[in-house]
């Protein structure tokens, strides 16, 4: 058993006044044990919805309409059917999440230490063990024991995000979902956080799902990379493959629209016309056909299926680039 999590046919929808928005459209995904998988996509692509769906944090008007999220533990559990105490133990014990807005997660009127104690006690950790654990995980996240007695507002943004990571890891989950954990931070701090995530992964044998809109950030942490578009994964594969040999026209467009230090000044950037499809109306054919530079008439008619293009590299396109 090499997979930690298997997602099959997942449909997470949001009921709105205009109709039902299918944020995830029958999504399949396997997450390997011990890997960092980056979910990359633009706003509305469904990448954050997937993270929240795995955590079972989708709230009304949203719901998981269909599909399964199987956690391969001592025995297989379908996360979508967990309730009450079992769901609570699943969160944090098995899976923990770190969010973008570090300040909102920490309770502003509690010392860092007490936030740890609360979380650990809620998960039935032995009292004698707690203090040692706090120090241990703060240290792993690159923070000294001094931080324990401080309040969140006394910490900088980067330190707060480290506290969050330490807090999320303190219950020793198998899977960490990090939703844009560095988006609100400056580059220098971002680099430090990404470094410590990498170290933690190696030391603890963690599996990480890293959600980001920034393909460069994804490139610096991920083993595998999944490109999201309109509620589905259009391309997934080893990082080097996806970045150096993107096979889906959308991945390629996304990669070439990034401005890097080598972009020639004033040159026209490759850009996509139009908008992603409306997720309320059923999508016919390929979801990207209206914006695709290499679309053909068939793309409108037939839904592309996921196909293997090279080792562990899948793409959902009738005419993948380079074939």
């Amino acid at each position, binding site marked *: 058993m090499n997979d930690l999590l298997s997602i099959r046919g997942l449909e997470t929808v949001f009921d709105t006044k205009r109709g039902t928005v299918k944020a995830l459209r029958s999504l399949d995904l396997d997450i390997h044990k011990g890997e960092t998988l980056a979910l990359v996509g633009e706003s509305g692509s469904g990448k954050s919805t997937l993270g929240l769906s795995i955590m079972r944090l989708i709230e009304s008007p949203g719901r998981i309409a269909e599909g399964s999220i199987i956690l391969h533990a001592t025995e297989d559990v379908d996360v979508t059917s967990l309730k009450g105490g079992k769901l609570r133990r699943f969160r944090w014990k098995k899976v923990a999440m770190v969010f973008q807005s570090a300040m909102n997660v920490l309770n502003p009127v509690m010392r860092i230490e007490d936030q740890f104690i609360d979380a650990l006690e809620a998960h039935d950790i032995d009292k004698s063990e707690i203090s040692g654990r706090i120090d241990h995980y703060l240290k792993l996240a690159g923070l000294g024991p001094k931080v324990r007695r401080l309040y969140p507002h006394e910490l900088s943004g980067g330190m707060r995000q480290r506290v969050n990571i330490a807090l999320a890891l303190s219950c020793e989950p198998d899977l960490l979902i990090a939703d844009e954990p560095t988006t609100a931070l400056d580059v220098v701090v971002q680099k430090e956080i990404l470094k410590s995530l990498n170290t933690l992964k190696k030391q603890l044998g963690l599996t990480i799902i890293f959600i980001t809109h920034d393909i460069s950030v994804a490139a*610096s942490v991920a083993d595998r990379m999944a490109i999201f578009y309109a509620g589905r994964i259009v391309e997934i594969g080893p990082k080097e493959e996806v970045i150096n040999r993107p096979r889906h026209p959308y991945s390629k467009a996304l990669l070439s629209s990034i401005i890097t230090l080598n972009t020639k000044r004033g040159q026209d950037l490759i850009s996509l016309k139009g908008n992603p499809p409306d997720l309320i109306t059923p999508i016919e054919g390929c979801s990207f056909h209206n914006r695709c530079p290499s679309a053909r008439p068939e793309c409108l008619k037939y839904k592309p299926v996921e196909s293997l293009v090279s080792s562990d590299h899948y793409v959902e396109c009738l005419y993948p680039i380079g074939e």
Partner: protein
Amino acid sequence: MFAKSERKVEENVSSSSVSGTDVMRFENVTKIYKSGPIVNYALDDVSFSLRKGETISIVGESGSGKTTLGMAAINLLNYDRGTIYFENMPVKKLNRKQRKKFRAGSQMIFQDPYGSLNPYNSVYDSVVAPLNSFRPDLSRSQKREEVLKMLDKVGLRPAESYIDEFPKKLSGGQRQRVSIARALIMRPELIIADEPTSMLDVSVSSTVMTLLNHLKEEMNFSMLYISHELATARYISERMAVMNLGRIVEIGGSDSIVDHPLHPYTKLLLTSMPDVNNSNSEEMDVTLDFDIYNGGIKGCSFATMCPFVRENCKESRPELNKVEEDHYVACFYPLT
């Protein structure tokens, strides 16, 4: 029209280097925020000039003072010391007529496309506002014609279908285009763009950057581009100023700064940038310390973090020194 007053001003500041082609010039501008015992210099003795037709980027992390600088430039913020000149006239001392010219001639593109348009006003209402104030001579239909032309220019086509739309119906990229149309409708000499794409998706952001580039060439305005991000800054601007804790620590040609940074802080920013190809293997060994207020800093603002720090860096403040043609650095021991 302003020849007379211009000459007068020039005489007054003849001691400093006055160039007739500067659109905007900062001279020793300082802005201090005090809260209890904390004294923070959002702008600490900032001097630079923006030449006609050029784009200069102000690059820095949060708290570096770059947004304060933009607000001061557009005269939405009072500063404590120093002078800002707009076409060689001190902005604070403009008379009524000159102030009007300054207002019409300097506009801003804001960061947040969702906050910079009034949700109750239509696209037309937003874009026409400057015309209402500065061009009372235009008739209603002439104004509408102007707005349509401008919308077309910023790529909202067909303009007719956008002009009566409300922001609610527009995507982030479209809103930002409306903002740009409003800023440009008076054909200003100066545009201040405060991270205009940082809240947009990657693919949208690249279209907006391309648009800005085209408009810049077509309409020939000067631009102060504020960004936390070096790659877009280099893409859009010929010159670049790097800010750290309210001070400009390095200023010069964008390529020159990116290719061989002279200040250790610039180098830190460059090596910290995530890179798609992971070609960025160089690392700098810094002690991170971001909770600094620069009120009490005697020496270099980067001294506490700098791996190359020496005794005198903590004692006296390095001034911007010319190291090569059009490349200045505020460091006693610039990188080579």
